[in-house]
């Protein structure tokens, strides 16, 4: 009896917690739409504090940080513009080490800062992001976590020997996505694994992977572009794709909006 009551209370608390988090999130998004960034960011942080593992909350919060940075300092923002989210996630994850999606968003928050940083800071940040993606995998292995860490390895120059690590992660992600219900977002797995093979000097496997992907996603321009290029043209194209100084789209919206 006592335990049943406790369970009921716990359910009530959790649902009201969830309601409060959603309310804060909705209000936060409205404030961001109205360009009231200080209020909006505080509300989104409140939502995340209540639900640290909420992938959507974290993603939208990071996008709001990015918009605010670009408003203050056009183009890519200044490094300090991103420190708020890094500090916030640092505190959040110190208390919620099991929140795999929290680590993922923490890593992406670091990635978001990279284009605004200097060349050496970019390396330090990229290294930090990798460690957070690893913590996400340790907390709860998932397609998105392996895919993300695998793609992150691709941005490292070959001399650091991380191309094989990219292949390993992206092969795992591919294995996972083949067991999951098909979704449009999984085209990224084929693109990235092909890119990883290319970076690992396995051109034949790269082309095979892109071709396999194109059969499933015949409209993919990314796959078509890669398959249409050879030699130096392909290298120039992929070097540009993997240019660490260019901003990577870390908006995770596709995860909950695509079929």
């Amino acid at each position: 009896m006592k335990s049943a009551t406790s369970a009921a209370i716990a359910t009530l608390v959790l649902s009201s917690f969830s309601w409060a988090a959603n309310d804060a999130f909705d209000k936060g998004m409205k404030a961001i739409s109205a360009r009231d960034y200080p209020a909006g960011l505080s509300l989104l942080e409140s939502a995340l504090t209540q639900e640290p593992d909420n992938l959507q909350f974290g993603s939208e919060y990071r996008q709001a940080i990015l918009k605010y940075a670009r408003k203050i300092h056009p183009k890519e923002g200044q490094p300090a513009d991103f420190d708020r989210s890094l500090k916030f996630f640092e505190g959040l994850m110190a208390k919620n080490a099991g929140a795999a999606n929290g680590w993922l968003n923490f890593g992406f928050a670091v990635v978001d800062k990279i284009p605004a940083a200097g060349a050496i800071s970019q390396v330090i940040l990229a290294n930090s992001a990798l460690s957070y993606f690893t913590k996400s995998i340790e907390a709860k292995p998932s397609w998105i976590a392996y895919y993300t860490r695998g793609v992150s390895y691709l941005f490292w120059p070959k001399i650091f020997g991380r191309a094989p690590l990219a292949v390993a992660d992206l092969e795992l992600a591919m294995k996972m996505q083949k067991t999951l219900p098909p979704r449009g977002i999984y085209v990224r797995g084929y693109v990235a694994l092909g890119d990883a093979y290319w970076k690992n000097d396995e051109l034949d496997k790269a082309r095979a992977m892109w071709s396999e992907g194109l059969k499933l996603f015949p409209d993919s321009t990314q796959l078509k572009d890669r398959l249409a290029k050879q030699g130096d043209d392909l290298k120039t194209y992929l070097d540009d794709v993997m240019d660490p100084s260019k901003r990577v789209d870390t908006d995770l919206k596709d995860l909950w909006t695509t079929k």
Partner: protein
Amino acid sequence: MNRHIALSIPFAAGLILAAGTTQDRWFEDLTHPAGFVHPHTNRVFKNKYANIMSGYTSLGASVAVADYDGDGFEDVFLTESSGTGKNHLYHNNHNLTFTDVGEAAGVSKGNDDQNATAAALWLDFNNDGRPDLFISRFGHCQLFQNMGGGKFKDVSKAAGIDGYRNAIKAIAFDYDRDGRLDIFVGSYFQPVNIFDPATPRFFPESFETANNGGGLTAFHNNGDGTFTDVTDKVGLRQTGWVLDMGHADADNDGDDDLYVACDFGTDRFYRNNGNGTFTDITETALGFDTKKGMNAEWGDYDNDGLLDIFVTNITDDYMREGNFLWHNDGNLKFTDLARETGTFETGWGWGGKFLDYDNDGWLDLYVTNGWVSAGKDSYVPDIFEMITRPGVDFADVRNWPPMGGKSLSGYEKKRLFHNEGGHLFRDEAARHGVDSNLDGRGVAVADFDNDGRLDLLVANANGEQRFYHNTMPPGPHWVAFLLQGTRSNRQAVGAQLRLTAGDTTWLRFVDGGNSFAGQSSARVHFGLGPRSKFDSVEVRWPSGLKEVFRGLAADKLHNIVEGTGRKVQ
């Protein structure tokens, strides 16, 4: 009628293409035949940090050009950095060969246990018409007064410029327009004795915002053979890891502004206030960067009447900073157009210099590059292991990994960017055979055989120089000017020349040693393309006097003396 003195220099026999060259290749490597037979050697330190320092002191190869004996042919000073190595003064024998007269001239002793030569600068500090020689050193700088007759006198102590600093670069211009050349010295390390450091904390504290470097020193020329340190007074105190400085009149207001390229941090732009002081306007002029500025060269690459700036940074697989080509937008604002113009990527860049090598009227660009070319193993993973180590104190040299026999951005090909009409550059270095993969540091541009085609002399660290003689087939026209100030500093550093031919006007100026590890000719060279004549050249002297000279012939070098032209408002 103009009273200018026109000195006609006959075309040299160099119009005939040398054997072994082709119509497509316009430069021939004459390094050895010319007599440049003393390769540069890096300093090997003997202190307890020597194994680490060796990787970061691959510096000191530089080249400076001037006609020190007034015989009408450009001579060369090449620096050496080894402990017992001599600096070299190569006298031009008028036939594309040179003879090292450094020892006889008294300018060869630049290295010992407490001093390492870094760069050289010719300047006529006493306005006697004879170029004097300033030597930047890690240690005590030197100033040699040109006494004439091929002899120099060390006046460093009397001049008051020999305080301890780790100087890597000097330029000279008359910042206060008092008719005398002042000296600006850039220093890399802070003034610790790097031969026997008392502290291990003398390396850069940050890779992007380091402020524990040597900064710059401004020496005001007192006109009596002495100089006064006026760095604070003129507003130039800073503590960046200065690698290069470049002066020019960015806003055409009559006085020279200053760009300072800093390694490990933000380059600085100083506006000359016109009253003997400068104001740091980096934020509004450029914005703050975190790159590894190595070079500050000015030139009007798009012929819009405003001087632009070329800065090298590091661009390699592991660090993609990209160079700056700061397009002068007017009103002391600049936009980086390196990506758009194709000048973004030159590897680990060092000295870069504008020149019109094909006399087509557009400034081309030669860029040296490469840090350390050694073994097949790369130093990159070692350095990044340190960089990503949490809490590491970069300023402490003991935390830096020894380079050993590894390479870092080595074996890079030099670039010769041909200017394709002011908006795009195309690399022609391989075509012309000027793409050596030695570890380049500086380049000097001069017409060593007075044939109207600009030659190149490249200084390489721990290696041979490269002397590239320009053998372009005849056709495009040119004209060059050597200016002599009377009210202005005699070398006319800072003078702007606007040459008009038909509806085209070009802007060039006399620079006082711009470009890292390289000083080019003091002559101002204009490529005229197919135009066999031009209408006029307007000279705006540093004194403020504006004069127009007309009726001058093309395909000649003209000596122009201040006050001999038609004065204009």
